[in-house]
């Protein structure tokens, strides 16, 4: 049986200024995801996480093109599908939760309208059935007195409540994969936790696969089964959560972990030196080499290959190549 979602060598680039400027936002990304599994996509802003997500549902801004790769949802390649077929997949089989709950609901339509849409278009529910379905979804995301609240408009609700509604919308089509793009960044810490628990619960109930995009490693630890660390459009390390925290293999992962504030210590916070690279003018060799404390000559000339580093984990670093590391 094919995995729920398999992404192979995905490349999405932006072409600006009449094609004179190419931004390699996603550059050879591969991963697989099974039912009920959660993968975390981690990295600094601008490293290609969000573009990866939008590439999956093929909703990219003008100027962006998917150059190569395969995206297989239960064995069907999404890249060969027409936009009409894709529309059937969006919301029905792959749902999305966006970052900013304040902005992701249409201010001019009622909650009911917005939650009902996926069920309306994908399940052809109408009238009372549709209404029951919406009530069910709102109850599932713990909206108090849903009967009344579903007639409300977004501006009448708090941020946490809105994000739960977005969660309900994601559930509405009964999806196989949910992409959550930093869903808690704009929420208060207490509400964050509630929301994450809610998501977990929903996942447990429906067995949906979850792609969780974040730059918060704490959330990764709580939510994910495995983690893909992205840097400059590439996955530089992919590991189980446990492996990542206890045995990070890529210097960038290590730097990320170091920059996490630690409880109970008074060590000064560590910041990764240098700037994230300009994706239109990448340095030669390894993209991370200008900022890497272990950079070698080779790093500056030759890009490292993906290396298996045990336990199904992979890393993209010369240090992970035994012969090179020995040199």
């Amino acid at each position: 049986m094919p995995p729920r979602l398999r992404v192979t060598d995905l490349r999405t680039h932006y072409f600006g200024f009449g094609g004179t400027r190419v931004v390699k936002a996603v550059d050879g990304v591969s991963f697989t995801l099974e039912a009920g599994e959660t993968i975390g996509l981690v990295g600094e802003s601008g490293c290609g996480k969000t573009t990866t997500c939008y590439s999956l549902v093929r909703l990219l801004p003008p100027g962006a093109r998917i150059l190569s790769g395969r995206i297989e949802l239960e064995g069907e390649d999404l890249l060969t599908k027409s936009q009409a077929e894709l529309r059937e997949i969006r919301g029905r089989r792959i749902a999305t939760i966006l970052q900013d709950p304040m902005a992701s609901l249409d201010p001019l339509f009622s909650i009911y309208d917005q939650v009902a849409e996926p069920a309306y278009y994908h399940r052809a529910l109408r009238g009372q059935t549709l209404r029951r379905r919406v009530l069910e979804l709102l109850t599932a995301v713990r909206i108090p007195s849903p009967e009344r609240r579903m007639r409300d408009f977004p501006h009448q609700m708090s941020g946490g409540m809105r994000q739960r509604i977005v969660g309900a919308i994601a559930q509405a089509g009964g999806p196989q994969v949910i992409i959550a793009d930093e869903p808690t960044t704009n929420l208060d810490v207490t509400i964050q936790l509630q929301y994450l628990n809610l998501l977990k619960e929903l996942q447990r109930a429906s067995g949906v696969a979850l792609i969780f995009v974040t730059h918060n490693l704490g959330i990764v630890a709580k939510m994910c089964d495995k983690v893909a660390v992205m840097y400059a459009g590439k996955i530089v390390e992919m590991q189980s959560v446990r492996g990542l925290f206890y045995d990070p293999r890529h210097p960038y992962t290590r730097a990320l972990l170091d920059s996490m504030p630690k409880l109970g210590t008074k060590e000064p916070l560590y910041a990764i030196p240098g700037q994230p690279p300009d994706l239109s003018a990448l340095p030669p060799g390894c993209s991370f080499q200008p900022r890497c404390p272990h950079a070698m000559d080779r790093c500056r000339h030759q890009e490292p290959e993906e290396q298996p580093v045990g336990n199904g984990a992979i890393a993209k670093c010369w240090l992970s190549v035994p012969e090179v590391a020995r040199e």
Partner: protein
Amino acid sequence: MATIPVRATPFDGIFRVARRSYRVVADVPSIPLLIVSILTFVAIFAPVLAPHGKLDPVKPTPAQCQAKFGMANCPYIDNVPPFWLSGGTFDTPLGTDFLGRDMLSRLMYGARISLVVALTGTLFAGALGTLLGVMAGYMGKWWDQIIMRVTDAWLTLPSLVFAILLSSVRGPGLWNVVLILALVFWSRYSRAVRGEVLALRERDFVRLAEINGVGKFTIMFRHLVPNVMNTVMVLFSLQVGVAVIIEASLSFLGVGVPPPEPSWGLMMAQERESLMEGRWWLAVFPGIGITMLVLSANMLGDWLRVRLDPQLRNR
């Protein structure tokens, strides 16, 4: 932890600068730039370039007089059509007006008036509006209330009505039009600049300057004014086109630049009656002049707006 310096040769820097500036230049829309340059060139060198004077009729030959009026001596030949129509000559390529003056020369001098009036008027408006906007935004409190209420009231008056009203206070005249444009348009700047300043006021460099006891006026002129210049420049470039139209409209209504100066709007107004006689060129050429100038000013303004406002890059 050591910082790792980005290694770069000096040439890299030069190349980067060169590449960037090339991008900027290559990106400027070339057609409007060309039009504006030509018009500016023509305006500056009108006395050299114009084949005839702007106020004096073209001296006719006795033969021409005989042909047109049946007399040996006449002061001028009026309403000569452009050279491609029958009766036209290359001496006056775009024909002559009702007083036998060369259209081409008058159009050239007209570019001068339009540019001078629009640019200086907008400049004064920009200076006044920026000053008041910075004051309102930075001084806050009563200053803000008073300046912004006046700005609101000012904005309520449609610009052309306001301009006509002012022109009947001041009477016609080129510099009066400049003054009118300044008085009408300052409010557009003060509104935008104030908003910008409200945001800048909270920024670190302003706070730091305040903590260090830098005076209010120094903060306004050293720190705030340079930082709102982007906004002001964008507004300026978009306002120039409007100013050209307002000048032309005022002159058209007879309350702008007085005759016999060849303002484009005035030329159109004076030849309005010639339209009925089929001498369309007399009114259409100045109209094309205005449209070209405003169009290219607007295009450059748009481009500048996109350039200076990264959010709009892809628009």
